[in-house]
């Protein structure tokens, strides 16, 4: 809930600002406003995004690594059973969509699914919990809990996938084959410029749509959590209206959180499936 001293607009802006830091004159400096963050230009880091991404990634790998160490042919214990269940699910998805042979694809799909799922799961942490804790340390410090509401994170993932798609396209089809795929269809060799334009757009739209889909969904979800949290902002004044708002806030955030469980899983799954499909297309030789 917003404290009395700040307006709704400030509250929203505060929640949508990353903790952007950069090296300035030899020491690490973090922006205290959106304008300051913008001034830092490209060579700055969103520390909150990176820390949360790293923590979630490490949690994922920690549990899966432990399960991998314990995995045996015997009866699996709880954790191992869960991990095997996830892995079989991923394996089935990969087998269903990916026709080539590449030992990278399945672990890649697993990492994408589990990591993005955990990142998205941060959206279900009540939005002011961590913010208030951080504020105890430094009231001016920003902390965005959900890395997938930062386009840097989603583009970081989707551009990596894009690099892999281009790499495997060239590796499997050769540079000429890759160019032919872009230039000689759908209208035949004589319309090469048009083909190149169309196929180029469709190729470039892959990473953009991949990252913006995830970013848009999570950003919008986060935004709605913020707006719901704002409803109870007037809670401190004990009137019938504010009590009603407080009750609505609890109910609405509960409902939205339950609905969000579906969304975070769906978004992680879509990102994974599309990655598999794009890589499958990169491995296929058409002609």
């Amino acid at each position, binding site marked *: 809930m917003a404290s009395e001293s700040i307006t709704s607009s400030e509250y929203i802006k505060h929640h949508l600002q990353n903790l*952007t830091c950069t090296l300035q004159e030899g020491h690490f400096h973090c922006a205290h406003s959106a304008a300051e963050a913008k001034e830092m230009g490209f060579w700055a*880091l969103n520390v909150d995004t990176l820390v949360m991404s790293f923590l979630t990634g490490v949690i994922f790998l920690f549990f899966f690594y432990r399960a991998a160490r314990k995995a045996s042919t015997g009866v699996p214990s709880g954790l191992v059973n869960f991990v095997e269940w996830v892995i079989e699910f991923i394996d089935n998805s990969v087998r269903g969509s990916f026709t080539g042979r590449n030992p990278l694809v399945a672990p*890649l799909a697993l990492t994408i699914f589990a990591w993005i799922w955990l990142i998205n799961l941060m959206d279900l942490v009540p939005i002011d919990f961590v913010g208030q804790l951080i504020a105890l340390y430094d009231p001016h410090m920003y902390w965005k809990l959900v890395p997938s509401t930062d386009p840097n994170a989603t*583009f970081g*993932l989707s551009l990596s996938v894009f690099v892999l798609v281009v790499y495997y396209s060239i590796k499997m089809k050769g540079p000429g084959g890759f160019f032919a795929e872009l230039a000689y269809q759908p209208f035949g060799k004589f319309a090469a410029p048009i083909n190149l334009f169309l196929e180029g757009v469709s190729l470039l739209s892959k990473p953009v749509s991949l990252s913006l889909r995830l970013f848009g969904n999570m950003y919008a979800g986060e935004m709605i959590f913020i707006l719901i949290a704002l409803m109870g902002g007037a809670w401190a004044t004990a009137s019938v209206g504010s009590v009603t708002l407080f009750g609505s806030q609890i109910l609405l955030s509960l409902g939205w959180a339950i609905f969000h469980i579906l969304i975070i899983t769906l978004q992680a799954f879509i990102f994974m499936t599309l990655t598999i499909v794009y890589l499958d297309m990169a491995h296929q030789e058409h002609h």
Partner: protein
Amino acid sequence: MNINATLIAQAIMFALFVWFCMKFVWPPIMDALAARQKQIADGLAAADRGKHELELAAKKANQELNAAKEKASDIIAQADKRASEIVEEAKGNAKVEGDRIITGAKAEIEQEVNRAKEGLRQQVSALAVAGAEKILRKEIDAKAHADMLKTIANEL
């Protein structure tokens, strides 16, 4: 919401996570799954084989049982036959023996009878002679009496 170097850091982190996953997470679990799958398949195959063998054994046991039953009834029949044979034989022997004993007894009885007859005859004739002597001493008609005696002796 500016695009900045976070993007590059995120991509590097992603690459490291994927590498770790590909190296240390995915292969051991897939291996374990494949090994377990094989173990289960083997187990099922073994169970099938065991079932088949059990069926065979049951069939064989049944056969053996039937053969044994047949043999047993053969043996019983044979024993019955033999027993009745023995009984018949014993009956025959007993009859022969009985006949023999009877014949022997009859012969003996006849002998005894003859001997008794002979003895009686002699005693009667001696008695008669003694009687005759006594009679003769009183009134002798030796000739007429001797004829009478002879007729009597012959009648005995």
